[in-house]
């Protein structure tokens, strides 16, 4: 299954070109031009990794990250920053972002971070599945419980 990536940035040409390049590399890339739209898309669909611009009009990256972690805590987020300072990105990592990248970024570096973020999410999901299996084995009624 392809890795599902959501690209969030108000620079339309940037996200479109990046999405096309990721699709060529066999990723399932979706774009979003605002924080509000990204949160809505995350509510409706599942993504493995979100590439999120820190500075956007309206809901900015840090706010979007907070919302995303509430909606889909396992989805990994890589912050994208155009600022020379890394404070905003570090702040994002404190709030649960997987990593950050400075704009403009090297494709190889971005792809590597996406893959690592996806691995982390997959491992986390596998651990949750294992825990559920163990719970069911030890107490079969647990299978009837809702998540």
């Amino acid at each position: 299954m392809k890795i599902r990536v959501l690209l969030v940035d108000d620079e339309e040409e940037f996200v479109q070109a990046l999405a096309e390049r990721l699709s060529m590399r066999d990723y399932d890339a979706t774009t979003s031009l605002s924080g509000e739209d990204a949160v809505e898309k995350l509510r409706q669909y599942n993504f493995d990794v979100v590439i999120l611009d820190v500075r956007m009009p309206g809901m900015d990256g840090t706010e979007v990250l907070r919302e995303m972690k509430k909606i889909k805590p396992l989805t990994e987020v890589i912050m994208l920053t155009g600022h020379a300072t890394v404070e905003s990105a570090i702040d994002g990592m404190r709030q649960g972002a997987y990593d950050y990248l400075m704009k403009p970024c090297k494709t190889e570096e971005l792809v590597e971070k996406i893959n690592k973020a996806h691995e982390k999410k997959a491992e986390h999901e596998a651990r949750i599945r294992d825990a559920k299996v163990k719970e069911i084995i030890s107490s079969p009624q647990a299978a009837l419980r809702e998540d």
Partner: protein
Amino acid sequence: MSLKQAMAGECGLQFFGKMTASISHEIRNVLAVLNENAGLMEDLLLMAEKGRPVDQERLKALARSMGQQIHRGDGIVENMNRFAHEVDQPVKQVDLNEAIGLLVALSGRLAGMRGVTIEPVCEEEVLMTTNPFFLENLLWCVVDFAMPLMGEARVLKIISERSETGVRIRVSGLENLEQAVRDRFPSKREQALLESLKAECAVDVTAGEIVISLPKKIDPVYSGDPTGE
């Protein structure tokens, strides 16, 4: 140097830093688009080498887009250059509409981040002799103060006009001015800039406007050039 001049100078450094940081962010955005477009072009050519036919129209569109981004970047750098040269002479003849236009271009992104559009309204040529850097700094202070007070339209108008005594700038489209003004406007930094520009500031709560009145000409000694040269 008086305390007020020192304060105006410190405020000026903050203003310069704010605008420069915003400009650098815009340039980075341009570079990021160019980077992805160049990368996409390279990807398409590599795929063509492997036998997939290249879509020439796609390549042309990418080249066109890159040209537009270069044009955009050039505009940003030109504004940055004009801004940097505003401090060359403490006092000079200024076309007020050009000064407002420059401030709108420099602060457009910062306003956009707060969901505000700044619209200059310049119906006549307004020439004045003043300190352009302090003038733009004062305008930014007013815009920065005004942005949280915008009505639903989210359009902040900066209107330039001649007056009986000199020049008037009206910053219009504001709501809930009374409370905000009482709490924090004009602050000491705005007062220092107003004094350096020999300007006065009035607030028209009913019209939702901040009105700055400036003389048509100031003496260099009032604006950071003690030699008067």
